[in-house]
């Protein structure tokens, strides 16, 4: 026992800047310490305040190695702020935040050296062309020029922008910019990549290309942390996710777990040719586990859509349209964060 503690201390002293070295030392790391290292991110009671406004209000997160972890939530839920804190560019007001086993408050530069970041608004260097963007960015990491150039070429290839290497950033479409930003975030071969709304504003083709690239990263064992308000994106990419609302975590789990815990398996959407949804709701009472009345339609949350539809018809109701579908994360999301517009 004493021996292992000494080994741990030696490890902590020797580990700092190099990445290669850490892997070798991992073999002598005691189990207790290893568990902490394997948590790429671990936050306890994380709080961020701007003046009177509390953007993040005491959240706990654990992201193990290799996982794709998602933050869901409406605008202003605190997702981006959390991402910035994890990216070590926004000091937490209170709480503990450890990233790659290091303290975010004191080891910012060393953590960032092993992090890839895709910020919400790209922050590309508009005065440089694509290739220069990647090479110069690599230089910020202290990567040797020759290596930087090689990696830049490879990464342009990876995001299918090789033919635009000499273009100006201004001439790129939104999807291309996003891909370039993703390529840039990989220039230091990071163990953890943070993506803040990676596909917002992209057309379907561009989104699918980005998803596909992210999926390949995941296969390579890179840990992904992303924020999104596209539920399909979260379902596609995330192993585990948290729903944030008002700076707090409203729910946590795998997509499937969240659906099971917060909504039913299926949803039936009914539209009627009448405005009088109140009376209809009364008649529908008891047909499903939960009935939600919206201005344009009525939602029935049920585990068995078919029999619910039969029951609706059985009660003599004649909806103009009936849609039977699986419950999605979107239903969870709206359930948890409400339907009122946030902006």
């Amino acid at each position, binding site marked *: 026992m004493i021996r292992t503690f000494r080994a741990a201390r030696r490890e902590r002293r020797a580990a*700092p800047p190099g990445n290669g070295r850490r892997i070798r030392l991992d073999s002598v790391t005691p189990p207790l310490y290893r568990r902490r290292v394997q948590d790429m991110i671990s936050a306890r009671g994380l709080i961020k305040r701007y003046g009177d406004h509390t953007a993040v209000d005491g959240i706990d997160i654990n992201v193990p190695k290799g996982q794709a972890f998602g933050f869901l939530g409406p605008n202003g839920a605190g997702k981006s702020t959390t991402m910035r804190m994890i990216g070590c*560019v926004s000091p937490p007001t209170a709480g503990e935040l450890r990233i790659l086993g290091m303290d975010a408050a004191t080891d910012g530069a060393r953590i960032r050296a092993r992090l890839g970041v895709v910020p919400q608004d790209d922050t590309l260097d508009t005065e440089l062309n694509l290739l220069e963007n990647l090479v110069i960015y690599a230089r910020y990491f202290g990567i040797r020029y020759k290596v930087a150039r090689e990696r830049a070429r490879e990464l342009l290839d990876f995001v299918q922008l090789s033919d635009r290497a000499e273009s100006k950033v201004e001439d790129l479409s939104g999807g291309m910019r996003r891909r370039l930003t993703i390529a840039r975030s990989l220039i230091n071969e990071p163990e953890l990549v943070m993506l803040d709304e990676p596909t917002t504003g992209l057309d379907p083709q561009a989104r699918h290309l980005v998803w596909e690239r992210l999926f390949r990263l995941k296969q390579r064992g890179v840990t992904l942390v992303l924020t999104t308000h596209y539920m399909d994106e979260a379902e596609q990419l995330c192993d585990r996710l948290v729903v944030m609302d008002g700076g707090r975590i409203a729910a946590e789990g795998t997509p499937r777990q969240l659906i099971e815990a917060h909504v039913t398996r299926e949803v039936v959407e009914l539209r009627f040719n009448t405005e009088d949804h109140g009376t209809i709701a009364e008649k529908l009472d008891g047909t499903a586990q939960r009935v939600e009345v919206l201005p344009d339609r009525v939602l029935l949350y049920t585990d068995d859509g078919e029999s619910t539809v039969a029951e609706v018809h059985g009660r003599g109701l004649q909806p103009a349209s009936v849609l039977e579908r699986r419950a999605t994360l979107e239903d969870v999301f709206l359930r948890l964060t409400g339907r009122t517009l946030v902006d």
Partner: protein
Amino acid sequence: MTVMTTLAIRQKGLRPGAMVERNYAVHKHGWLVILTGLLESLFYLFSLGVGVGALVKQIELPDGRMVDYAVFVAPAMLASAAMNAAVAETTFNVFGKLKWMKLYDGVLATPMRPRDVAAGEISWALIRGGIYSTAFLVVMAGLGLTETWWSLLALPGSVLVGLAFSGIGLLATTYFRNWPDFDWMMAFIFVMFLFSGSFAPIENYPEPLQWIVHASPLYHGIELLRACTLGELSPWMLVHAAYLVAVAAVCLAFASRRLSRVLYK
């Protein structure tokens, strides 16, 4: 262990260098703009030095020595060229990157820290200013406006002027909100340009004004460079240099802290 330490140190040393590299990459195709910056200061030298000098002819220094007016004004133009280069780089350019291009937000996601950004931008400003100053000094020598070989000292002297003003510029930039703020800064710079003993020894000024002028970093820069190009070496040069270093140190310390506060939100 030692390998790791040296690696770490070298990496730290490289950081501001990457910022310089970035600026070089941007400007390597735009040398024309840099060249025109040099010509701008030469235009002032020709107009207010040589042109007005032809009217004034000779001027008496406080110690009674007579020199051509252009010889008297040229080092002041050199100092203000160094000032302008430093200020333009650390205000307009840095502000653009900070507020419009959001460049530093991207840079700070790397191991770069705000103080690395500050050091990098200042280094770049000094490199650019140093090029201007060297070329300016060569033109001065060509026109016969340098009196001695001591004029070579004006080069490190003008780097010192650049250092002080890039500190001032960077600090000011962290407080700027929008372009009208720059108008006031330019006004300030221009007032200094006109009233720092550029066109006449400040002994000609009214007494209270003289005292105010003593606070102007440009005044100390001009006196320092003038002592070099006129060959009038004196211990006062150390005072002037020390003042410039002090201004630079104070401003840079504050600027770096301010930059952290602005960028690490």
